[in-house]
């Protein structure tokens, strides 16, 4: 409900203001909408839906990775998965444009590869000594993320400014939701829903994993398989989110954290809740980002960094204090 409301309201906001009624009318009778319809269907709606998909993907990934690492500080951006996806996507844009099928596919595929690779590296580094240390996870994620972002930026420098890929890349690096084509949007939406459905049974097993790997294995969970599946599904979701919105940080941290205060820590309930609330959160954040300083837009990634950075630091500090007691 809230999600639908957020879509309609934020679709109305922008350089040309459309009233709530106008948006609804255009949505219900697209053929008679005229100018409002054009604005709505080519600009506003794709962007709003894209923001929703990005928010849902990042938040759901946050829940999955937090369960995987048994640590509420895990987030696709913090862990470097977003950075890997952005680099993979950038390679697709510049080096193998011929690979795309109907304009979509190659970016998402290479973004998925990059995200998976980044996660595999962070996983291996963080797991040294048989179990995860929080510092290892955060430092490895930071180092990998920074390296990957630098590589993406280097790719950007090598290109001429006239290259159409430049615009996409700049948007990615700043964490800006682009206006996608309907083809790309539906492609991402279908894959994302599929990934979320696959993630649900995994989320239930993450509750058992929360006790410890040994406990989960003792209770009949195939721990190694679960961990690999979570990394794969999380990488798919990250890649899809990054292909639309680039490097948007801390969404996967903020949204699950607040939902835990409401719904408790059950990953099975948290996952769908995080996907929906994440969508609403990012639609609202993106609407603010593109309207507050109108006609200028600030990338929504900056906004979430301003909100999420302090929240991250608070959580870090809070955890350290509680773990020393």
């Amino acid at each position, binding site marked *: 409900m809230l999600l639908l409301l957020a879509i309609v309201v934020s679709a109305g906001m922008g350089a040309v203001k459309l009233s709530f009624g106008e948006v609804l009318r255009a949505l219900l009778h697209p053929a008679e909408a005229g100018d409002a319809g054009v604005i709505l269907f080519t600009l506003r709606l794709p962007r709003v839906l894209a923001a929703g998909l990005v928010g849902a993907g990042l938040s759901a990934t946050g829940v999955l990775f937090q369960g995987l690492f048994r640590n509420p500080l895990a987030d696709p951006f913090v862990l470097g998965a977003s950075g890997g996806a952005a680099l993979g996507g950038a390679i697709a844009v510049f080096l193998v444009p011929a690979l795309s099928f109907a304009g979509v596919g190659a970016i998402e595929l290479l973004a998925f590869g990059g995200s998976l690779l980044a996660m595999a590296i962070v996983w291996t580094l963080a797991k040294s000594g048989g179990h995860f240390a929080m510092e290892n996870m955060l430092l490895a994620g930071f180092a990998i993320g920074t390296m990957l972002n630098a590589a993406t930026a280097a790719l950007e420098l090598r290109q001429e400014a006239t290259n159409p890929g430049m615009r996409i890349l700049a948007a990615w690096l700043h964490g800006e939701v682009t206006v996608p084509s309907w083809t790309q949007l539906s492609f991402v939406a279908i894959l994302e829903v599929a990934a979320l459905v696959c993630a649900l049974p995994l989320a239930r097993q993450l509750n058992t994993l929360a*006790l*410890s790997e040994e406990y989960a294995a*003792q*209770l009949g969970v195939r721990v190694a398989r679960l961990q690999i599946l979570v990394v794969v599904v999380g990488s798919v979701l990250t890649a899809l989110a990054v292909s639309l919105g680039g490097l948007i940080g801390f969404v996967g941290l903020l949204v699950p954290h607040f939902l835990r205060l409401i719904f408790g820590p059950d990953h099975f309930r948290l996952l769908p809740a995080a996907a929906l609330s994440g969508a609403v959160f990012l639609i609202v954040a993106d609407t603010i980002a593109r309207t507050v300083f109108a006609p200028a837009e600030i990338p929504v990634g900056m906004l979430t960094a301003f909100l999420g950075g302090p929240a991250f630091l608070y959580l870090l500090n809070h955890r350290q204090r509680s773990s020393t007691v």
Partner: protein
Amino acid sequence: MSAIMEFRHVAFAHGARTIFDDLCFSVKYGETVGLLGPNGVGKTTLLRLAAGLLRPASGEILVRGRELGNWGRRQLSCCVALVPQELEVPFAFRVEEIVAQGRVPHLGLFGGLTSADHEAVESAMEAVDITGMRNRVLAELSGGERQRVKIAIGLAQQPKLMLLDEPTQHMDLGRQIELMALLRRLVERGITIVAAVHDLALVRDNCTSAILLTPDAPAVAGPVSELLRSDLLERAFSVERPSIERYLATQPGSPGNAGMAAPPSLDSKEATGQQEMNEPQEHREHLRRPGEQLRCRGFARHGRSWRYWDHD
């Protein structure tokens, strides 16, 4: 077959380090088996092998007469419950939700808890008396309470065989005695128990048989009375024989009677004097009931249990 579990010529190595060479023993239905041995000898490894978490390099492990490899993972989890040493949960799950995880091997892939599952969780919590803390989170609980939550998870699995890894760890004397009484109640319910325990007196007073692991020597299994011999213990723990003899001699008969046991004899006081018992500890001792005094000194003599006083 009266054996619920049997190890036949089991070998296992952690990397280059051989833990077991040719391990053989069997556990009969309804037994309470104490698993003894010095730190690092492989007690935890043995329990993990028995729970099917590790595969032996060679040899066979049979549960209810069937080789472990022929058990389905979930099927095994419904029959054998392992209670590991540590339980730490990074999220704020309530005690009830944690205990309900014990039902996981009984559930389908998407299945929620059925009423039978809820009953099993409820009776597991009742058995260890934690129904009053069902809504609390683990971080708020004491070591003893946490231990009971762990056992409740195992009970919710409704196993036939329960493997406990140092269940009395982090427990003061009173909690240790309560735990042993709880284990006896589990045996009455038809659960066979294998527990790694450091305290020889607890094993002697509560177990029907024992397995003694000795570094670089074959393991010995048998009735407790045969196993708690000073020559075997001397070799296993590399402690001098007189101190073991004194240790075993001064332990009260049964922890259940600890409160009523005779006051410390002159002998046991002398024995204590030879240990590094210092003034403040002696002083504290007078605050304890007689039976408890005895047991605490027993710990001291064993060499690693001064922490009882430390905790107090």
